[in-house]
């Protein structure tokens, strides 16, 4: 009963074009020799070379990477525990509150999260004397908090269609709970943990609004640096940064999908 629907196909094609045209155009123009963004002045790698000389940029990129690695790791560990507890412990005390607190950040406008966390840090500094200076540490805490929510979603959906009989068997054979957890449960959850970690890592690397609020003088992350520059318009070196990030993401996504597919041959996602 399938019929041709040219209208539908052209809407779909338009949608995909909308998603990819901006990315492709940035990549193309990152190799443009001309300073005028739209004028093609020949192929050149000069904007990539200029990135290497920009100490402020490299510093910001390094800070962002450090924050992203630490916060993704903590968010994955904490998020996995929350997902397991919500999935397995039927009569969990404060269940409604917990599941509310992990789903709310998914839709909470970042600007509210940013403002409220800043006020928390100020109040904490007044009450317990920490954190006296806001910077990498406060940004990391903020990132762990919101990216945990995404890890919970990923791990929960894996738990929902995971076979629990292996763990039960290991238990029956007398495995101690922690040993069973690390030898059986964690390997089975690994694809979800890897994609959860990558998601948390990307979200942290990408965050502008929340970081801006909870950061202090001296701590400038990559998005904060980029935002300050692009607010004034298009700059060719930002095109080069974008292209590098796209390349890194492509590698990461390819790695993740290989890992996931090897574990789950019939993977749906």
């Amino acid at each position, binding site marked *: 009963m399938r*019929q041709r629907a040219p209208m539908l196909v052209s*809407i779909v094609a338009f*949608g995909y074009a909308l998603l990819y045209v901006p990315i492709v*155009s940035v990549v193309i123009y990152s190799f443009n020799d001309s300073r*005028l963004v739209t004028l093609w002045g020949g192929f050149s790698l000069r904007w990539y070379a200029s990135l290497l000389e920009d100490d402020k940029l490299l510093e910001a990129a390094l800070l962002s990477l450090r924050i992203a690695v630490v916060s993704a790791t903590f968010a994955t560990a904490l998020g996995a*525990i929350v997902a397991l507890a919500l999935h397995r412990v039927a009569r969990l005390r404060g269940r409604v509150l917990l599941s509310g607190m992990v*789903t709310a950040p998914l839709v909470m406008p970042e600007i509210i999260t940013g403002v409220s966390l800043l006020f928390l840090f100020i109040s904490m500094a007044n009450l317990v004397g920490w954190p006296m200076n806001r910077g990498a540490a406060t940004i990391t805490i903020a990132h762990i908090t919101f990216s945990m929510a995404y890890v919970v979603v990923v791990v929960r959906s894996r738990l929902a269609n995971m076979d629990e009989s292996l763990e039960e068997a290991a238990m*029956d054979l007398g495995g101690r709970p922690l040993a069973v957890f690390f030898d059986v449960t964690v390997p089975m959850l690994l694809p979800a943990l890897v994609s959860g970690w990558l998601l948390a890592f990307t979200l942290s690397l990408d965050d502008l609004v929340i970081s801006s609020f909870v950061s202090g003088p001296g701590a400038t992350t990559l*998005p904060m640096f980029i935002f300050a520059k692009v607010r004034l318009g298009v700059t060719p070196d930002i095109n080069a940064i974008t292209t590098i990030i796209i390349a890194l993401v492509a590698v990461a996504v390819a790695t993740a999908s290989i890992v996931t597919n090897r574990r789950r041959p019939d993977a749906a996602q």
Partner: protein
Amino acid sequence: MSTETNGDRSLRWLKRAVAVPYFWLLLFFLAPFLIILKISVADPIVAQPPFTPFFEWGAEGIEGIRATFANFAFLFQDGYYGIIYAASLKMAAIGTLLCLLLGYPMAYYIARQPAQRRHLLLLAVILPFWISFLLRVYAWIGLLNTRGVINEFLIWTGVIDRPLAMLYNDFAVYLGIVYSYLPFMILPLYANLERMDLDLLDAAADLGARRWRAFVDITLPLSVPGIIGGCLLVFIPAVGEFTIPALLGGADTLMIGRVLWDEFFVNRDWPVASAVSVVLLLLLIAPIMWFQRLQSREHEAVR
């Protein structure tokens, strides 16, 4: 019943371990909201932090609570904020509608493809999500500029002879919202449309229904949960959106996220900024609760 006790043992450590993220979320997610509520009723003062304390500490402990609703009164008397809230809601609503108009056909199309292609098309929808949101919004500046790619192309083909003003106005913001949030619209819609029982459509066709009729009478009503889910996922964050109006909007594009940012970093009026965010949160509480209910129902269905 050794499995029982083993299972209980493993649950016991999980119950203990969950206290850590629980405490973390109480401290870094819930407490901050109580604090903005508190600060929104404080007086602004020139100090660091620039607001009055909530509790007066005396010899006997808390002697009084200082609260003022002046900040809220200011918000409501000053028509400026009312206009901005209304404008933000309007822009988010129109953006969400446009997103739905584009996302629905896409989700519908993807859901009707053979399995192999379906996964590929879906992956292509998710993929851009992994690339920095800020940089993807930035990419539109180069496209929409008066001397940007689109204008140069249209002039070159002779469709127009003077560049169109596409950047730094509401049009660019709508485009930015549709572009950035499209995957959030498509995914819940797809999940819903993919599950749908195609036999119903076949039956309708057997009974002589036109495709369009079958769609309007069967597919559309059945996909309402997906539509609601997708729209909430787009609408809620779009109301408070900062990056899109800041980069693509014009000087007259007033969205609450941007105003809040300026109130904070430019005017440094923290109690007013805090009152602005409390009102924003109150506006969004109903859609957020709605979304939470949808989510938990989904989890119940899976379990």
